[in-house]
């Protein structure tokens, strides 16, 4: 480092002009204090807003789940008669297929 300072000497260090350090310090303390207070207010508002948003989202999610559940129940209620109809149709078909050979067997026995 000394070699650099030998090549290019720089002025000696100085203090702040009289009274300036205290003034600057007080201004800085006041600024940071005010900023800290403003930040904490802002943070509180943000936290509250975030809480409200979360609550709203949860409510919407709950409503959505309820809606989906209702739709599913409705659909299953609609599909049940169709299923029983299909079973009846199958039974009739089977009966229709099985009945003629049985009747034929009976006539042969007679």
């Amino acid at each position, binding site marked *: *480092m*000394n*070699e*650099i*300072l*030998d*090549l*290019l*000497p*720089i*002025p*000696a*260090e*100085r*203090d*702040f*002009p009289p009274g*300036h*350090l205290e003034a*600057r*310090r*007080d*201004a*800085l*303390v*006041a*600024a*940071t*204090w005010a*900023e*800290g207070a403003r930040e*904490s207010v802002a943070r509180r508002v943000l936290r509250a807003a975030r809480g409200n948003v979360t609550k709203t989202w949860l409510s919407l999610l709950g409503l959505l789940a309820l809606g989906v559940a209702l739709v599913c129940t409705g659909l299953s209620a609609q599909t049940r008669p169709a299923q029983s109809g299909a079973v009846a149709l199958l039974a009739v078909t089977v009966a229709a297929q099985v009945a003629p050979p049985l009747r034929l067997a009976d006539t042969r026995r007679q």
Partner: protein
Amino acid sequence: MFSEVMSIGNRMTAADMNQVVAATDRELWAAAVGGDAESFGALFERHSRAVYNFAFRWTADWAAAEDAASDVFLTAWRRRGNVVFTTESGSVLPWLLGVAANQLRNQRRTRRRSNAALARLDPREVQSDHSDETLGRLADEAQMAHVQAVVAQLPEHERDVLAICAWAGLDYAEAAIALDIPVGTVRSRLSRARTHLRELVEANGHELRRDAVTR
């Protein structure tokens, strides 16, 4: 820890003052982050002189350096979550000087642009107001402007290392914290800066003035 001196305007007692003087940078910083503005004031008192002189060496202007020192501490407060302390002494100064270097670098770019714009508007030289400056400070500014004219010819990264190590007196590890680069990079950049500076000084016809060395 220093909650009793939290509100601004409160006068600190001698016991409080001793407590603050004995506190480490880490303790003061923690108290400041916890809402104790006076602890931040104590940190300002502790390190502002170093930041002020560092800023002067970048700006060659004592009044601008004073403003810059305040700005650096305000920026440091806003970036208080990113603070880095030195591993050995737990000092916050290298990190503060890093904040200062970033800020002053940006200011220099802005000033260069605004100076160019001013020069386009009005070709007359802009005279600064030195009415409240002492002769000594004027001489400092003239000397530093001369140094800056030479150093400005170095690449920016070499200039940064030179300012941090040679002018602010930080060691390699502290400079690495300040500039957020590895220690090896600090070493190599400083070595290159030294070589380039020697070439520049020789080319500019400067003489070695060991008797004028101030540090």
